[in-house]
């Protein structure tokens, strides 16, 4: 991916009219018929809507030459799959399309798209440049307003077409929802193969939609809890190397690996600070565990907690000012929040049962956790002040929530008594749209990367 050009993103007729307000006094008041003074404009407040998946038509991209036909179709398929899985869009079956788009520079025949109830329309083209690079362009149209909402073009190497499709999906998502997308991102997870008693666990990396799986470790050592660096393509994880479990850093581009600190006891549950400069983790000290933070540059280690309890699963707030963690200092596992430099911690989870493994949302508005009640493991969220606790999904075993870069979707792993192994799932922050994530075999401990671009 090299350069991204923007074109015609501001079509005519889209400028907001800078007219003077001629509203009646009292915005909430609705003027009744007959009582309106002459010349004033009737005013109506709409404070509710009906959320539903938006019907959208994604046309097959036009290929510049027969060589690109497969790629062009692939781009449209990836976009369709992304938008469909988000649960916010309802892509229309291409067989229903009336107009066949052959020239993306022409304004579509909107009546044909209105007839099949499409509200959004995506058209695009993939062409090969003379320098061998691939040029992909798209336009997003509002069918009812008859206007272009977005239009961009991208250049990339031909084998990188899937990323282009993800970037286009993100652009469509943001234009229509107002929120950043999460499609151009990756997942690192623990791939599990082999029988239950001799499981081979390897670190694996894949695109957010399950494509392009790549293994990062050979399965020789047991690996657990991989976490992405929020600012670089680097991960930290825990591994049983020789004897003691240690926290490692791994650069996924160079495959370079190093141990984080040389501590006497077991170190586990690592997680990066938002700037990627520090790693916060748990160190075992006798029967207890305490939180430590290590500066990756100076290698200096600072103790954050000192309690006769097990403090673990630390996670920074996205602004880096606080750390939430799990502790049993009050008797059972609960979630606490303390300043990032250490200090008094405050318990925030007071809902039913135990609360473990807190993860702060990249938006900062929620903390996801694993809830344990009566032998059931659920995935839930609560606000950083402890209010608004909600369970998103419940079951025999759900664990390890991780947030999509836009903080709207949570991925976790889940297994049932009848299953031979765990699988990855995604669910909306609203608790809807639970979907199984495609993986080559059993998978656990997912971690979602930040957006790649």
């Amino acid at each position, binding site marked *: 991916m090299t350069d991204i050009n923007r074109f015609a993103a501001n079509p005519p*007729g889209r400028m*907001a*009219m*800078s*007219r003077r*307000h*001629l*509203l009646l006094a009292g*915005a909430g008041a*609705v003027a*009744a*018929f*007959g009582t*309106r003074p002459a010349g004033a*404009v*009737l*005013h*109506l*407040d*709409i*404070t*509710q*809507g*009906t*959320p*539903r998946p*938006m019907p959208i038509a994604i046309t097959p991209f036009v290929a510049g030459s027969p060589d690109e036909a497969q790629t062009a179709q692939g781009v449209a398929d990836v976009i369709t799959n992304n938008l469909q899985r988000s649960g*916010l869009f309802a892509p229309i079956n291409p067989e229903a399309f009336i107009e066949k788009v052959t020239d993306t520079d022409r304004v579509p025949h909107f009546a044909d798209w209105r007839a099949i109830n499409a*509200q959004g329309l995506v058209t695009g083209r993939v062409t090969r440049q003379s320098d061998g690079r691939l040029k992909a362009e798209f336009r997003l149209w*509002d069918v*009812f*307003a008859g206007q272009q*909402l977005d239009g961009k073009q991208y250049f990339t190497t031909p084998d990188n077409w899937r990323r282009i499709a993800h970037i286009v999906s993100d652009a469509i998502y*943001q*234009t*229509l*929802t*107002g*929120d*950043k997308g999460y499609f151009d991102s990756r997942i690192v997870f623990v791939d599990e193969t082999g029988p239950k008693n001799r499981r081979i666990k390897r670190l694996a990396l894949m695109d957010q939609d399950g494509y392009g799986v790549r293994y990062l470790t050979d399965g020789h050592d047991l690996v657990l809890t991989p976490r992405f660096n929020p600012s670089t393509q680097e991960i930290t994880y825990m591994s049983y190397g020789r004897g003691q479990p240690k926290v490692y850093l791994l650069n996924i581009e160079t495959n370079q690996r190093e141990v984080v600190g040389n501590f006497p006891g077991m170190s586990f549950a690592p997680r990066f600070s938002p700037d990627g400069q520090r790693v916060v983790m748990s160190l075992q000290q006798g029967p207890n565990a305490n939180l430590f933070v290590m500066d990756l540059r100076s290698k200096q280690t600072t103790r954050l907690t000192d309690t006769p309890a097990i403090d673990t699963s630390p996670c920074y707030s996205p602004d880096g000012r606080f750390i939430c963690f799990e502790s049993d200092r009050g008797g059972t596992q609960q979630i606490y929040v303390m300043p990032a430099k250490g200090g008094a911690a405050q318990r925030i989870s007071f809902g039913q049962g135990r609360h473990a493994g807190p993860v702060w949302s990249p938006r900062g508005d929620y903390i996801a956790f694993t809830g344990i009640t009566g032998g059931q493991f659920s995935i839930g969220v609560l606000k950083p002040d402890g209010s*608004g606790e*909600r*369970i*998103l999904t419940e079951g025999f075993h759900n664990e390890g929530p991780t947030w999509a870069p836009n903080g*709207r979707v949570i991925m976790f792993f889940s297994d049932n008594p009848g299953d031979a192994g765990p699988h990855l799932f995604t669910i909306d*922050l*609203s*608790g*809807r749209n639970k979907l199984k994530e495609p993986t080559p075999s059993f998978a656990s401990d997912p971690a979602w990367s930040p957006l790649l671009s």
Partner: protein
Amino acid sequence: MQFRTASAISTGLHAAVLLWAVVSFTGTPFKSTPAQSLPVDLVSEKEFSQMTKGVKHAPKPVKKPKPVVEKIDKPKPEDLKAKITKKQKVKATVPKPEEKAAPPKPDPTAKEIKKQKKKTQKVVHNEPLPPRRPPIPHKKRPKFNPDKIAALLNRRDPQRHSITGAALNREPTLGAAKATAAHLSQSELDALRDRLIALWNPPVAMRNGERMRITIRIRFRRDGTLEIGPQVITHGSGPRFNALRDSAVRAVFLGQPYSMLKPKHYDIWKEIDFTFDTSQMYDDIATH
């Protein structure tokens, strides 16, 4: 010296009292019984009208609508009227107790005396009085004890029962004689608002109480279609504003033609400012 002794005694006694107070006050823990809470729902005027207006798309009942039934009743016993008449018949065959106690025939002498007495003085009735009603057994009425109001309150079953009947019938009753819709007619504006609420798909970024509002001016034709494209009056920028603006414009376009607006009022509705406001909008996030 005496003063000193007195003050020493006084100090000692005070200290003792204080010590006693400290010990005795901590002896009994403070008990508080949890107060019973009373659930209260705040209902706005608008919500009330929503609740009472009936169902918008209710199918119109063809014949006389069946009454709404939420719960199947116990099978009814035989006709109550018939039972009563039967009972009366039984009573009629049995000699009445009053007849039994009918006054015996007075003898002629007595009659004469009576006649004489009637002339001079008031008649003294010698007839036996009709049998007295059996005394009403004195029921012990519960004494009202203001300290036990809670007990009185708790004794009652909930007053709201399901509407019972022989068969379930959940058919809404728009247009039925007893339904409220007949009396609460919706104004054209309410119908217009309902149409836009049904069509507006608010962007997901604003479904969680994020405050943003946008005003759009629409000019209508007499047939309820848009004369010109919607004019966005509110200034703003950024992806969220744009997504909100586009969703609002889309809803307005989708709603054409606005047939609920009556042509005779055209002068009033030919131009309307719609404000789409997300501040009261919550995804079902909060209700799980």
